[in-house]
């Protein structure tokens, strides 16, 4: 089933993975469906079945439709939350950028239905993090998942604050990954002129390239084992947006995340069995960390 999930993750990309020729036995399909939900791949499976590229029985299609409908409802609630949170932050002069699933669904993929997501992630400037938490607490009733370890922690050293709004999760980030990589990211790069995308008749702001690729790569690299969707995000950004290699490598060096980038790219190409070798893949294959481990 794991290999089948990789095949689902590669749907629509030039891959050596091939779907089964006949519908899977129901128990195997059920396992695949569960794995696709865990790995956030159910949108790809839906498109593959919808395009008759993945054979399925009527019962399997019905089960898939039910799960996709549930994820769709969740996505709309999450998107409503993004719009409300962004408006509240904007009203308080707090800059924000939409990160991860919501941003990727609307910027990297031809149709947002392909890329499902569970939670909402927003980037805010570090000095505004504590105020942003308060703004969303007042405006949305957002509650912290964990109390602040001590007063002033968020403003000085916190990297992210997970919040709950009802059943939805929203995390405010001050860096784009929550590990050592995040410590070297240049704050000015994060709030460089954004990539704007439409959502529900409004315009939201995401990271531009190459920041969006580096963020996706860092997420994939620290995800152990890397979730297939994180690897797909990396491949999708490379193949759809054709980022300028020099721009990517200069910023990766400045952020000291070249190793993460190389690992994410090589893992994505291997796991998804992708054909073709864009220059960034050649670079990643030949990458050797320097003595500082960058």
């Amino acid at each position, binding site marked *: 089933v794991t290999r089948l999930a990789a095949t689902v993750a590669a749907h629509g990309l030039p891959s050596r993975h091939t779907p089964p020729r006949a519908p899977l036995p129901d128990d195997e399909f059920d396992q695949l469906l569960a794995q696709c939900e865990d790995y956030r791949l159910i949108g790809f499976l839906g498109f593959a079945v919808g395009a008759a590229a993945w054979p399925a029985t009527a019962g399997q299609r019905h089960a898939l439709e039910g799960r996709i*409908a549930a994820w769709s409802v969740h996505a709309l609630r999450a998107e409503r939350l993004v719009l409300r949170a962004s408006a509240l932050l904007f009203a308080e002069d707090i800059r924000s950028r939409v990160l991860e699933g919501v941003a990727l669904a609307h910027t990297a993929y031809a149709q*947002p239905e392909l890329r499902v997501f569970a939670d909402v992630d927003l980037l805010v400037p570090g000095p505004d993090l504590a105020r942003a938490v308060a703004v969303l607490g007042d405006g949305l009733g957002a509650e912290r998942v964990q109390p602040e370890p001590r007063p002033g922690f968020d403003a000085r050293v916190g990297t992210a604050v997970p919040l709950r709004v009802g059943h939805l999760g929203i995390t405010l980030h001050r860096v784009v990954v929550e590990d050592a990589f995040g410590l070297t990211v240049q704050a000015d790069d994060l709030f460089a002129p954004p990539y704007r995308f439409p959502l529900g008749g409004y315009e939201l702001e995401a990271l531009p390239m190459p920041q969006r690729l580096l963020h996706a790569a860092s997420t994939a690299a620290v995800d152990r084992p890397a979730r297939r969707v994180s690897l797909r995000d990396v491949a999708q950004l490379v193949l759809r947006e054709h980022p300028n290699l020099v721009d990517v490598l200069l910023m990766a060096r400045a952020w000291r995340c070249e190793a993460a980038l190389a690992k994410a790219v090589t893992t994505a190409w291997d796991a998804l069995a992708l054909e073709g070798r864009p220059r960034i893949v050649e670079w990643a294959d030949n990458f050797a960390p320097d003595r500082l481990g960058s």
Partner: protein
Amino acid sequence: VSDGEVRFQRAPHVLWRSTLETVVLLPAGRDEPFALAGTGPELWALLTEARTFAAAVALLADVHGADPEVVARDLEPLLERLVEQGAVVRG
């Protein structure tokens, strides 16, 4: 909704998703999403631009080779519901 020259189109702030069989909608001002099945997804696709009810009926009847009167009977309550829920506006 079937009167004269009034045009209908998607409301500007609706969030939506397609599934294999339906369209799930969350219009501004509503708390809970709802789904359109049957001919709903096709009607929703047509309403990316402003159309009269008669034009929408004619298009769908042509696509399906169906009697326009039958299509109109199917579409009218659907469009009324979409307007009522704030997903479609008179353009």
